[in-house]
């Protein structure tokens, strides 16, 4: 295992990832130079609004994008493996082995014609090569781990026979079945009811800690990120505009977009006052503005912002923002 010899302790390293979707009419610049890393056992939340490139980033990491129309550049490593150079066999071993993914809608991952038990058992047999009875015992263990009540009976249920919350738990059980070291979660609680969402979030947090999985958790919800993240990366128009430990970013956001997002997220504002909304809407990914993509909506924008894309700046260890104002702002605090 050359992974153990490496100095870099990161489980995931993504460097300057770009993803474009090319069609005859237009090119969609979905991801535009994204760099991040995830350590083993760490939860990185990718936070961003609709269309900011969160799902495309995750899918690129699993090579789940349609190969013909998709142009990917950059470098992605998971546990030392270079994702872009893996052949089909290696990709298959990667997916559902080293890396697992859970989605917003469990029905996309669960097959409606097989019982929950059959699906989990098959997955275990395929990846672990153990006997069916051993796999069944493991499947039962997994359903109990994700706190599905009367787990033994549930093994014989079809996905549609379960409530939304139970289906999501079943999908998590399946994702955990091959002891992944990296869990990719794309808005796994967004479709759930509030009282169920918090149950699943707490469960995921606990499992992630106990099993020591590195996790990339995609969400558009600041509150969800505050419950689960160690670090957050804020995406806007296909770029990470800010990154840092969750508490720091939420307490003192550096990038004007993060600041605006927090101000416009309704949580306890005075009822007789307008919410401090960000004007305008996100840019068209077919025609990105030159320079900082947020500049057209930014109250601090200067001609310099529109001239070139701001380089990442790190005012303190572990924090980063792509904004030309950042260093000045932080130094004035110091």
């Amino acid at each position, binding site marked *: 295992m050359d992974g153990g010899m490496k100095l870099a302790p990161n489980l995931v390293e993504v460097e300057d990832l770009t993803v474009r979707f090319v069609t005859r009419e237009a090119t969609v610049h979905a991801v535009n130079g994204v760099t991040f890393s995830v350590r083993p056992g760490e939860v990185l939340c990718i936070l961003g609004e609709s269309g900011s490139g969160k799902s495309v980033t995750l899918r690129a990491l699993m090579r789940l994008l349609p190969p013909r129309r998709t142009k990917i550049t950059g470098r992605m490593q998971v546990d030392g493996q270079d994702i872009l150079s893996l052949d089909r066999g290696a990709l298959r071993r990667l997916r559902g082995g080293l890396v697992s993914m859970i989605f917003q809608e469990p029905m996309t991952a669960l097959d409606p014609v097989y019982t929950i038990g059959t699906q989990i058992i098959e997955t275990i047999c395929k990846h672990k090569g153990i006997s069916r009875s051993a796999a069944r015992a493991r499947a039962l263990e997994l359903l109990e781990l994700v706190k599905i009540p009367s787990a033994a009976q549930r093994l014989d249920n079809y996905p549609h026979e379960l409530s939304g919350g139970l289906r999501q738990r079943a999908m998590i059980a399946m994702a955990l079945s091959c002891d992944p070291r990296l869990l990719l979660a794309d808005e796994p609680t967004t479709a759930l009811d509030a009282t169920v969402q918090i149950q699943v979030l707490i469960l995921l947090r606990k499992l992630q800690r106990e099993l020591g999985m590195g996790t990339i958790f995609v969400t558009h919800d600041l509150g969800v990120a*505050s419950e689960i993240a160690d670090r957050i990366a804020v995406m806007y128009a296909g770029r990470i505009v800010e990154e840092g430990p969750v508490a720091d970013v939420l307490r003192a956001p550096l990038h004007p977009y993060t600041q605006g997002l927090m101000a416009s997220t309704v949580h306890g504002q005075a009822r007789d006052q307008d919410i401090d909304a960000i004007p305008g809407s996100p840019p068209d990914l077919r025609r990105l503005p030159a320079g900082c993509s947020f500049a057209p909506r930014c109250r601090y924008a200067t001609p310099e912002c529109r001239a070139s894309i701001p380089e990442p700046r790190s005012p303190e260890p572990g924090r980063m923002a792509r904004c030309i104002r950042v260093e000045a702002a932080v130094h004035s605090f110091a």
Partner: protein
Amino acid sequence: MDMMPPSSFDRGGPAQPLLIARDLRKHFKVKGGAPGAVVRAVDGVSFTLFKGETLGIVGESGCGKSTLARLLLHLIQPDEGELVFDGDTVAEVRGISVNALRRQVQMVFQDSYSSLNPRMPVQDSVAFGPYVHGKSRSAARQAARDILVKVGLNPDLFGPRYPHELSGGQKQRVNIARALAIEPRMVILDEAVSALDKSVEAQVLNLLRALKANFNLTYLFISHDLNVVRYISDRVLVMYLGSVVELGPVDEIFSRPLHPYTTALLGSRPSMDPANRIEEPPITGDPPSPIDPPSGCRFRTRCPHAEPVCAAKPPVLGEWHDRTSHVAACHLHDPASGHSMARATVGAA
């Protein structure tokens, strides 16, 4: 009028509630289900909507919020129950017609695509209502231009566009413009901001507040987002599995919830503070199926305080009188219920 509604208020005038719903009921047959199986989507809902207020309706998916909204507009027929609009019974011989109701009550939905005609410039969609309701073509067009300005869209720039040429927030502004173009007195907003990005949701919420003041509107605001409901509402109605479990002024509901479900719902909101995360979920399990809901109190299967009495008899919501009344359907708050922890409610005015 010989059939005065048995309400303590005068008919018409500021004290007359704009809308009174009495014991509304709507059950749907279950397709492919057992014979006779029904979804009790709305199962005996009563409330009062006062003039000029915003009443927020919260509750989890499938609890009947949208069905209730559609009943209020008579988009679907209630199986039972009565609707009184500004003192007039709706769709009764002596009351007001459904058409007259729909001239005064408009609705904005979550999914903009279903309500805007994709093959029509949005200015025509907005002008359609005033035209149908009797304005001349040119007057209707002018009304559309005026209202587009009011929702913050330049009519010269955006009016000629088709829905697919607009962002989500812009489409929702058009939907709001369309609802307001016929000058309704009341607007039902069913998850009207839920599909929007946070940065755009805030813009639309500000707009809704401004329009309400401007046009003297009454809102029924349906949302599963408690923070948004808290911001926009004067009073809040909490639903669980087809029935009302709590009703009261917004600050009362959020600071002194009476029903254990409301408490759980409030406690399920993410903390927004990584240093104070929620360690234990307020309640466990999923909401049960509305096809065969639990007997007695529907929340009892998930309630930490459930006792045999909760299965034996359904709690009643209690009497509300005015905008300050705070009531809950829970045996805990009925001293005569027989629940061992029951005590009189202090919240009720």
